[in-house]
């Protein structure tokens, strides 16, 4: 079956999603599941009254079935008590949509999981309202595989003249404010600058993020550089995604550490 052979109901929810958007105000619980790297990310916001889901909204980055399942789960959950809503399964969502293509049953059927995460989030928030969030770790001092081998061959510890890296794909590691400024300066010469940080998005001030976005610097949050690979010079890097705990390769020409 082709990935795009969707039922009429899936297509209807894709074309006319129910409850799309974000709820704001106080006493709103938020939950996110998935990862844009895998191609699916879902975000739910809930408003609960007397232990019942009074309102729910979603946002999705993903394929047709990702949008449709998120839309369907909001319809199923609305009006239910939290415990009832926790019982909604992936299969329930798929059944209500008159089925999903087999290949999509796992990858793009995150909606029930995302709802569960949001409810758990809500319950925890109400149990320990003032518990402080986890602190970010400082930048790690671990040795990076290949750092010495490629020193001067694509690995730089200092960049005096940003134009010297013209047209290269550059990965720059977070070393504080100076490295952020350098990232912005490099973006003036290179079509591709990636700023890698172990911090979470919410721990970087919005004005700095906006500045980087404006100069087309791509930020990778909660990520750790673990290896540099190539033949005679840097060709790619290995990155550890701390949030998802997986590693992947990214093709670059230069690394600034």
């Amino acid at each position, binding site marked *: 079956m082709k990935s795009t052979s969707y039922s009429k109901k899936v297509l209807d929810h894709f074309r006319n999603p129910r409850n799309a958007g974000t709820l704001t105000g106080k006493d709103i619980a938020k939950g996110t599941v998935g990862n844009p790297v895998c191609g699916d990310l879902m975000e739910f916001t809930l408003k609960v009254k007397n232990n019942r889901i009074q309102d729910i909204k979603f946002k999705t980055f993903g*394929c*047709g079935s990702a*949008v449709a399942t998120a839309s369907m789960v909001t319809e199923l959950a609305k009006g239910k008590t939290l415990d009832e809503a926790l019982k909604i399964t992936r299969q329930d969502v798929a059944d209500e949509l008159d089925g999903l293509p087999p*290949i999509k049953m796992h*990858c793009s059927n995150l909606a029930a999981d995302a709802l569960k995460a949001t409810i758990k989030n809500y319950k925890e928030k109400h149990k320990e309202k003032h518990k402080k969030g986890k602190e970010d770790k400082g930048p790690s001092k671990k040795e990076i595989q290949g750092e010495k081998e490629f020193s001067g061959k694509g690995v730089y510890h200092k960049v005096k003249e940003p134009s010297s890296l013209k*047209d290269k794909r550059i990965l720059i590691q977070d070393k504080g404010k100076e490295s952020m400024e350098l990232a912005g300066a490099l973006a003036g010469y290179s079509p591709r600058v990636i700023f890698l940080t172990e911090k979470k998005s919410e721990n970087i001030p919005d004005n700095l993020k906006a500045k980087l976005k404006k100069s087309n610097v791509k930020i990778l949050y909660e990520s750790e550089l673990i290896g540099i690979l190539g033949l005679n010079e840097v060709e790619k890097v290995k990155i550890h995604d701390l949030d998802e705990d997986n590693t992947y390769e990214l093709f*670059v020409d230069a690394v600034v550490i």
Partner: protein
Amino acid sequence: MTVYLDYQSSKPVDPRVVNAMNPYFNETFGNPSSLHSAGDKATEALDKSRSKIAGLIKAEPDEIIFTSGATESNNLALIGYALKNKGKGEYIIISETEHISIHNTAKFLMKSGFEVSKVPVDHYGQVHLNKIRERLTDDTLLVSIGYASNEVGTVQPIKEIGRLCRERGIAFHTDAVAAEGLLSLDVNKDFVDLMTLSSNDIYGPKGLGVLYVRKGIKLMPQIIGGGQENGIRSGTENLPAIAGMARAAEIVMQEREQEAKKLQSFRDRLIKEILENIPRSFLNGHPEKRLPNNAHFRFDGIEGESLLLSLNDKEIAVSTGSACSSKTLEPSHTLIAMGLLHEEAHGSLELSIGRFTKESDIDSVIKALPEVVDRLRKLSPIY
């Protein structure tokens, strides 16, 4: 009527080609191997067709081997050459952005004891000569680099790569499917030893491919039988398809320049207006060294399958490099090799145009796209 902007995936057969094929179904239906006059007529048609197709790439007729398609041609080039010439070495060099039929064939050869090295590409998807040179060893057997990317349309420096291989005495194969019918191909000027072509990619019927094999290059046959095609590829020749491809090649030789000019002006309009009208949109592939029929984009914050479905609702047929539209659920290896992150590769859109594309088709997609992108971005938690 559907606006078809997916010529890279499949092309309609030119009506002139269909006409040229017609006599070979039940008038001239003999087997070229037969000795009677019906067989002679078939042989005559086969020889004429072979000459026309050879002319398209400035080859000699007996250097043209017919196969069942580009995938078989790529298999025959890599496996056939590697097995026949084992003694010369065991290293095979391909690029990170080759067609899947090259990648998987190379993987197969690795399992059979050969070594494969993949040349990286730059941000625009281009291979650099020094990256190939530094990979060449004394036991390098074969280099295989596609003429142009079937996905992002970036054209490779084929002549320079061919010259380098010729100087070093290494065989050079190029899969020219994405470029045929659009660029002028010349196996001699480009120092090519093996070249893959497909019939459908020049508006001929499907199920027919060609492998150009330079005189003196030896291959181990992969399909064994009655010894057709100089013993390299057995099986009774698919004469209707071959006559069709010959007609298609003729049309290309007469009309290519004019057609490429038209396509290029459509392409440039697509690129200009889409980048202008849609914020945070980017062009994938090389800004200049690209095929005249290809416009490839990436939009921040949205996913390609959703984009494809939304455009399909507006009766516009396109392609995407997103994982969600593929059988393997992996994003396009070409976009990843160019340095895109997975989430960026998911948000890509490929528009490929062709012989029957009209100005109004370009208008339709330029009009529809901003609205579709906007709707999906409003749904997106990461835009």
